């Protein structure tokens, strides 16, 4: 990069950062010496002004309302979703409780001493009450 290009880049940077004393001094010297660089400086100022003063575009007057409408739509959608999730989790919890309850009830019934006297296997399945010896004697 030749000296002019180096100084030109320094000139561009000087618009967007505060140069340290050394570089500031170098740029000032270069601007004193080079009319071309001074012309560039003037051009850069014009171009930056031109860009900064353009772009007056703005959104429609109803912009804020449209944003709020979208947010309300999201809110109501998420509320509906929350309710559905609540029902789903409720069903899931009840299913687990029901299964656990059924297993518990059966276990209690089977383990209770009085139950064995009331409901015997031969009564349930219509079979005689075999002893172990009787079963073995069959074979």
């Amino acid at each position, binding site marked *: 990069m030749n000296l002019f290009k180096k100084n030109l*880049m320094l000139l*561009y*940077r000087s618009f*967007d*950062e505060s140069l340290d004393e050394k570089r500031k001094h170098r740029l000032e010297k270069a601007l004193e010496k080079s009319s071309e660089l001074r012309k560039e400086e003037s*051009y*850069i100022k*014009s*171009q*930056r*002004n*031109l*860009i*900064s*003063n*353009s*772009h*007056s*575009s*703005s*959104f*429609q007057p109803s*912009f*804020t309302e*449209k*944003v*709020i409408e*979208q*947010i*309300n739509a*999201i*809110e109501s959608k998420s509320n509906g979703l929350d309710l559905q999730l609540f029902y789903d989790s409720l069903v899931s919890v009840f299913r687990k409780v029901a299964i656990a309850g059924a297993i518990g009830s059966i276990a209690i019934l089977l383990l209770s001493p009085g139950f064995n006297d009331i409901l015997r296997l031969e009564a349930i399945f219509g079979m005689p009450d075999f002893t172990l010896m009787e079963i073995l004697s069959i074979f």
Partner: protein
Amino acid sequence: MKNNSFTKVDTEELKLDNKELELIEAARNGDQNAFRVIVETYERKVAATVFGMLGNRSETEDIGQETFVRFYKSLKHFKCESTAGTYIIRIAINLSLNELKRRKRRSFFFHYSEKNAFELENVPDNTITPDCIPEKDELNNVVQQAIGQLNPKFRSVIVLRLIDGYSTQETAEILNLPIGTILSRLARAQLKLKKILEPYIVSGNLYKNVKR
């Protein structure tokens, strides 16, 4: 949603008196009016950013709306490490860059000219005198088309630094890039713009309008 009595405040005021934090907290708790104030406060800046990045097209306003919707969705996670303005503009820039990528993909399949996006709509307005409006339109048109010809990474630094007026440091924060990269992109972008704008500036055809 609750409605408190927040009024519109300017960006500087927000930064100075912590009103911004108060508004964000209220919006986070479901106060629609607080969020409305945030939208109204940053609407112009978001408009300048997305119009600068995408030109004057129908989807530009949609990107603007999406910016605020995304901000609303991220309110719960917003840690106030940067100002709301910086955060919102970062969303706007990212959405604009995504849109530019989409346009690029579309242009691959369909004949789509990016240049068209930067052509201003000349809406007749009887309240403006005829001697100034064509010049202003011409000015905007040329500058927008010139910016529209830049690569998105150069375009974003020009929009943030020169159109939105953010400092170099803020521009670096928004784009999440080192300051050195921002400075070099700014210099290169301005050199590219010079090739397009120089004939207008040197002849004084446009610059005379800016001075007024």
